[in-house]
């Protein structure tokens, strides 16, 4: 029988951590609750090592053990002075990492086997939480100054404290600047693409030009737009329009050409008019391309709106908040702003992806094998 080396590492390093110094926080004997949790983790690691259980059981067990260990280490570090964690804590963290790895690996295998959506969502979520935890432990344990990198808890506090300000920034940047620009840019790109589709000459000319322009650093037009349209949201929306136009145009043109010959011939045997073919066959076939552009553009639009704010803005907006907070060395607020931007970006991307899934369910990439 092959022994589980990862679990052995987890158990051995966790036991070793018991004997090693912890730093300013004192020894394990001073902290009975943490000691109890830690022992529970060791027990689970040892149990799983000697009695390998079924996959689901194993994933659950390792997860519980890892949780107990994580809480124990976190509490220990909270008690101690910042930046004074000693070898025992780091060795313990390695043991914890091994157990987390085993839990994730079992979870991933479980997800692959059962194809259960909750498990497949829980595994990456657990990994994300683990990364946040590591970030927290490392910044506190090594005493990283919060001017360089604040721990996640401090960012969360800052986020909660300035929720009102950040809400206004969100409205300014996302609702007022980005959404109008995104809608106009994508809409114009799509319409021009459909119109040009009837003129192959223009199409052959615009495709290479559009591809080239898509690769250019268009963000650079931000100062010009601020000069033309002023400091308020109009200039940001204008930057977003220009940034989103060309990817949409190129993808629409490519998508309208994606209909296979067979399907085109079929429409012709039905004596379908140009409009009917466009509406019933070619636009649906172009949808994957169009959604590709929509997803790409959602990220580009947020970048455009925020970067344009560096060149001049009323005293509100995510980009403004970032640049002023950096100036005041309030890095926790910067990270809180970034969190808002990241959540916004992810939500926009996710919403478009969901819409894509429901509209292009027929596409091979969404079919279940």
């Amino acid at each position, binding site marked *: 029988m092959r022994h589980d080396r990862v679990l052995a590492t987890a158990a051995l390093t966790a036991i070793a951590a018991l004997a090693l110094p912890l730093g300013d926080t004192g020894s394990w004997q001073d902290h009975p609750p943490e000691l109890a949790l830690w022992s529970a983790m060791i027990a689970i690691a040892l149990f799983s090592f000697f009695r390998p259980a079924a996959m689901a059981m194993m994933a659950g067990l390792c997860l519980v053990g890892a949780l107990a260990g994580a809480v124990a280490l976190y509490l220990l570090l909270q008690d101690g002075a910042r930046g004074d964690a000693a070898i025992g804590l780091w060795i313990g963290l390695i043991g914890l990492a091994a157990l987390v*790895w085993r839990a*994730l*690996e079992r*979870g*991933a*295998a479980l*997800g*692959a086997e059962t194809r259960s959506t909750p498990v*497949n969502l829980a*595994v*990456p979520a*657990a*990994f*994300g939480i683990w*990364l946040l935890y590591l970030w927290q432990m490392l910044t506190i344990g090594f005493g990283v100054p919060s*001017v*360089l*990198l604040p721990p996640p808890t401090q960012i969360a506090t800052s986020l909660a404290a300035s929720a009102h300000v950040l809400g206004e920034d969100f409205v300014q940047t996302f609702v007022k600047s980005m959404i109008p620009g995104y809608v106009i840019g994508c809409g114009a790109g799509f319409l021009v693409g459909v119109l040009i589709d009837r003129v192959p*000459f*223009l*199409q*052959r*000319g*615009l495709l*290479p*030009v559009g591809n*080239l322009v898509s*690769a*250019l*650093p268009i*963000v*650079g037009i931000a*100062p*010009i737009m*601020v*000069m*033309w349209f002023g400091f308020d949201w109009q200039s940001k929306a204008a930057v977003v329009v220009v940034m989103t136009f060309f990817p949409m145009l190129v993808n629409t043109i490519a998508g309208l050409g994606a209909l296979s010959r067979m399907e085109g011939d079929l429409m012709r045997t039905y004596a379908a008019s140009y409009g009917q073919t466009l509406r019933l066959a070619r636009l649906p076939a172009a949808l994957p391309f169009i959604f590709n552009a929509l997803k790409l553009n*959602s*990220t580009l639009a*947020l*970048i455009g709106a*925020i*970067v344009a704010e*560096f*060149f*001049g803005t009323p005293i509100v907006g*995510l*980009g403004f908040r*970032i*640049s002023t907070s*950096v100036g005041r060395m309030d*890095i926790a607020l*910067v990270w809180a702003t*970034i969190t808002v*931007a*990241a959540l916004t*970006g*992810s939500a*926009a*991307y996710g919403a478009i992806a969901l819409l894509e899934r429901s509209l292009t369910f027929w596409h091979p990439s969404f079919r279940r094998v």
Partner: protein
Amino acid sequence: MTTSEPVVGGAMPLRMVARGLSQGSTLPVLTIVAALLVIWYGAAVWLNAPGAIDRFERAHRTAWTFGDLVADTMMQDRPVLPAPHQVLVELNKTIFQVSPSSRRSLVYHGWVTLSAALLGFAFGTLLGIVLATGIVHVPTLERSLLPWIIASQTIPILAIAPMIIVVLGSIGFVGTVPKAIISAYLCFFPVTIGMVKGLTSPEPLHLDLVRTYNATAAQIFWKLRWPSAIVFLFASLKVAIALAIVGAIVGELPTGAQAGLGARLLTGSYYGQTVQIWAALIVAAITAALCVAAVGLVERLTLRHMGGRP
């Protein structure tokens, strides 16, 4: 076309050229570019006209014609939209008339930006390949890490750029490296995604074959996965190099950097030097286009060397 008809006399090539023009994309592209130039000139007249009229009125010059107006819009010092030839004059002045090491030369500023972009491109490509290799070989990573790599791109890194620059600056990193980090962050994503696709692209049949040869994971990687991933790698690299340049330019914006194309954009916007902004933009565009073309060239050479399809 070249092989089917023997070329006799001078008329044939000419006709072939004509056919190439009408069927290929050269003529359409030229038409589009010409149309863009015409639109640009038109927009320059339209946007600069209010300023010109204003100036005429202040000079108490009532008898001006439309011709005067157009002529004035073409040669203002700080136009709302400079005409193409003004940008060309500025480009000529800042590229060919001054020595490349001068601080007034766009070659100098372009090189500052390009060096940061290339360094970041190298970092990002390396990171992308390493991550993709890990994801392909360790299923747990595929399930847990890949979703976060995708999510990482919805974070507007360009928005974080000022902080990265300032924070790294405060611990002593200034100049190229912080900008390169931003470039690298933008670059690694397309490379990772492309390489995951590329490294998993060998057919199951081929994988089974090398497995019957008792090949190790390393041998499978170098002899089968890597060669089949090359096409995907280059497609990703073309996207990545363009992103790297964007990253380097934006990296120069927040700190009031002294040199680089981004710094030129920033000083241009502070002092209303629109011609300078447009010249910097054109140089950035040319740099990006040349870099993408260079990657394309390397791709063609590599594929030819590997004996693959062109």
